[in-house]
């Protein structure tokens, strides 16, 4: 029975609920992730503008803040100091986990993995649906903490104990912190369900001819991201469980010798708050790459398509992704240089950290080499992809500063760190995500986004992002500490007053640019120009699906793959692109064994269910034959 017939029998008539709400179609789930991610992004950005207003105008009253947050959190139009910390905490949590992890990986892994490897859906569409619903539930629990009496968690997105471990430490350590932890546990479940599915799909469900060495770089990046998540999130779960024991049962894993206001000296003793930092950052640093790697994969694809050139150094790109993924597990200590760690250990983390510059530089140079003398098409997606390269360079360079323990000891907890990670992880990843949205919008909705509005969005966002985050480096070098509510009582920082105003105005400009994007995004769904099947003249398999988006992706057979994804401007062909599913004349026999031989082989040795891991690895590694 051909797969299309089997497929048609398998799927029944869809209702509104099964199509849009409890959908198991990876394309719909990707849209659900994207829309939820956009909503969370808007909330996260609005929070940042609120606390940036406080930083620029600490003595000014803004009635709008009181109207929005209520008189408890913004009395007389000025943010409450505790609530300022809560907003910073929630902004970090939302942006890191909900927008740039779930919003980015969730959207593009769901959309692209089955489409680009030639599969009808994920390995387990049901688990995929669960992954989204756990994510949505987690988002709702997190946002609900904004409405509890004592306010949301306010000890920073890194939830260091003791503030996170003692419910009475401060208002935000109470119910808000409990909800934060609940939300993150749900988030980890969502992330693991998704990640297991992504890995399983890439390794087991590739179409004929799609060997690992022919995978588009987006798939490689999303696959390795899922591996990182699978290996690192459980460690945070372990650390979080010990934290819950400290909070709920009174154990002392992280708590020791604490004197708490009216409660006096606490009975907790013997714990180590540094231990939590180790467990947290064992996730926390791979998390940085969980955020940036999908963006790098998206950029690789977009830069190659729009330069009309093969990606420069495909193998080097894959190896550098693997290198980044591996190294990300052995550098977590660079977040903890000032915890009093053994200098020898600090030196080890310093070396491993600086080595990450090598694969990162390989990627950057390969992007530049791909652009070099390319027939560049400056589409909206291409602008954002080039923007990512710019941020990746400027943010990556300051990473080398911070990776040095001696410099970090001076710069830690200053605005230098804020500037660094916002540029390299925040802006670069957001630009990757926006590039992906512009590029695959036609695949998602069958229509094009408005190009002029896209340019306005790009330039406003690009300029405002640099205006907000670049000056932070100079503030950090001058020693301006982060996390301060106001600098009015510290006259030595008065010199930065005007700079803070410029940064806040730039942040507002950036916010306005996103309104333009939101208008463009939502209006284009309904009134955008119809895109056709392959608007960018790209090679990958997602552009071989029909305009009508069907559950199962291809109406007939799944296409066979005959080449890698980057055959652009190959002089052997008339067109400047050659799709992966187009065979060269007369090469099928060389590429594929005949079906007959295959059937005979398998009939001699029937495959049992108990396939060993060794056999699996052997199968993945051997040259791809059908």
């Amino acid at each position, binding site marked *: 029975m051909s797969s299309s017939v089997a497929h048609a029998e398998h799927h029944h008539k869809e209702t509104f609920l099964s199509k849009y709400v409890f959908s198991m179609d990876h394309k719909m789930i990707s849209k659900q992730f994207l829309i939820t991610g956009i909503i969370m992004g808007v909330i996260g950005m609005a929070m940042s503008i609120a606390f940036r207003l406080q930083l620029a105008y600490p003595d000014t009253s803004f009635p709008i803040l009181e109207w929005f947050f209520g008189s408890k959190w913004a009395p007389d139009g000025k943010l409450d100091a505790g609530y300022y910390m809560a907003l910073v905490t929630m902004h970090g949590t939302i942006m890191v986990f909900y927008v740039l992890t779930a919003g980015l990986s969730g959207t593009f892994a769901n959309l692209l993995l089955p489409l680009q490897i030639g599969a009808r859906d994920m390995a387990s569409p049901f688990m995929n649906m669960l992954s989204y619903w756990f994510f949505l539930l987690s988002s709702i629990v997190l946002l609900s903490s904004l409405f509890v009496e004592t306010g949301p968690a306010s000890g920073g997105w890194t939830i260091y104990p003791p503030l996170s471990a003692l419910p009475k430490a401060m208002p935000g350590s109470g119910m808000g912190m409990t909800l934060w932890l609940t939300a993150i546990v749900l988030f980890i479940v969502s992330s693991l369900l998704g990640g297991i599915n992504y890995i399983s799909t890439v390794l087991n*469900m590739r179409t004929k001819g799609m060997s690992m060495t022919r995978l588009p770089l987006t798939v490689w990046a999303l696959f390795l991201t899922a591996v990182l998540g699978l290996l690192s999130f459980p460690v945070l779960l*372990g650390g979080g*469980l010990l934290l819950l024991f400290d909070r709920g049962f009174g154990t*002392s894993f992280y708590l*020791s010798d604490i004197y708490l206001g009216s409660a006096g000296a606490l009975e907790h003793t013997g714990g*180590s708050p540094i231990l939590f930092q180790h467990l947290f950052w064992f996730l926390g640093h791979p998390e940085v790459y969980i955020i940036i790697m999908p963006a790098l994969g998206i950029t690789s694809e977009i830069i190659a398509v729009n330069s009309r050139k093969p990606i420069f150094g495909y193998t080097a790109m894959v190896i550098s992704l693997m290198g980044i993924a591996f190294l990300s597990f052995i550098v977590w200590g660079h977040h903890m240089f000032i915890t009093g760690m053994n200098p020898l250990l600090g030196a080890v983390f310093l070396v491993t950290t600086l080595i990450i510059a090598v694969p990162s530089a390989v990627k950057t140079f390969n992007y530049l080499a791909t652009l070099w003398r390319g027939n560049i098409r400056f589409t909206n997606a291409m602008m954002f992809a080039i923007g990512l390269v710019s941020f990746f360079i400027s943010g990556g360079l300051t990473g080398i500063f911070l990776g040095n323990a001696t410099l970090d000891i001076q710069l830690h907890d200053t605005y230098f760190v804020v500037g660094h990670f916002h540029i390299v992880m925040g802006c670069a990843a957001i630009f990757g995500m926006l590039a992906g949205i512009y590029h695959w919008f036609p695949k998602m909705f069958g229509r094009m986004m408005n190009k002029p509005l896209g340019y306005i969005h790009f330039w406003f966002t690009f300029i405002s992002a640099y205006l907000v985050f670049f000056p932070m480096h100079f503030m950090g070098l001058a020693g301006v500490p982060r996390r301060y509510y106001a600098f009015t009582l510290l006259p030595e920082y008065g010199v930065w007053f005007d700079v803070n105003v410029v940064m806040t105005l730039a942040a507002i400009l950036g916010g306005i640019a996103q309104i333009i994007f939101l208008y463009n995004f939502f209006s284009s769904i309904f009134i955008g120009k119809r895109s056709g099947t392959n608007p960018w003249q790209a090679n990958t398999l997602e552009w071989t699906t029909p305009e009508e988006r069907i559950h199962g992706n291809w109406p007939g057979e799944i296409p*066979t793959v005959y080449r890698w994804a980057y055959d652009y401007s190959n002089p052997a062909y008339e067109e400047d692109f050659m799709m992966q599913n187009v065979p060269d004349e007369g090469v099928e026999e060389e590429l594929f064994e005949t079906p007959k031989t295959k059937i005979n082989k398998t009939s001699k040795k029937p495959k049992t269910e108990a396939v060993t891991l060794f056999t699996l690895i052997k199968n993945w590694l051997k040259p791809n034959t059908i």
Partner: protein
Amino acid sequence: MTTQLQERKATVNPKKFSLWLLLLGILMLFSGLTSAYIVRKGDGNWFDFELPPIFMYSTIIVLLSSLTMIWAYRAAKRDDITGIKIGLAATIILGTAFVISQYIGWVTLSDQGLHFVNPKYGDRVSASFLIAIAAIHLVHILAGIVYLIVMFINTFRFKIHKKNTLQISMCNTYWHFVGFLWVYLYMFLYFAPDF
């Protein structure tokens, strides 16, 4: 030409493969916890104590339960329904015995003044670690027992037989994994005072 070619078959059942990935995640959870144990121990102010002997019996019980699980799985492969029932029932009983033995172990520790919560005795965080790690492992064992009970019921409903061994094969993999996870944890905790 292309339509004549077969579609590429999955090299392993995706459900089974997903289970392996889940087990990898669980392994990372315990790697994190045992690493935390080593890091905290390295800080000093740590009370070393010998494991209650009952934990050795726990280890023997869990290894025996792996044998009975193999018995059940092999019975399924040769379509011996009674064999599956006996094997699964024995595994469930041994699994429950493991849970009880763990509980006895914690009570024994408690009698020695080593509790999960040890206020004012900072060095006894070692006991908190032991109980936390064992308890988190026990949750996985309990999940395994529920899994076994579901398999047991499915055997009575004739859903497990020679031609449908996927479910019991996954249950088999999971049970061996949590069993050997305990063996690792026992060895780790047994030798930990000598680190």
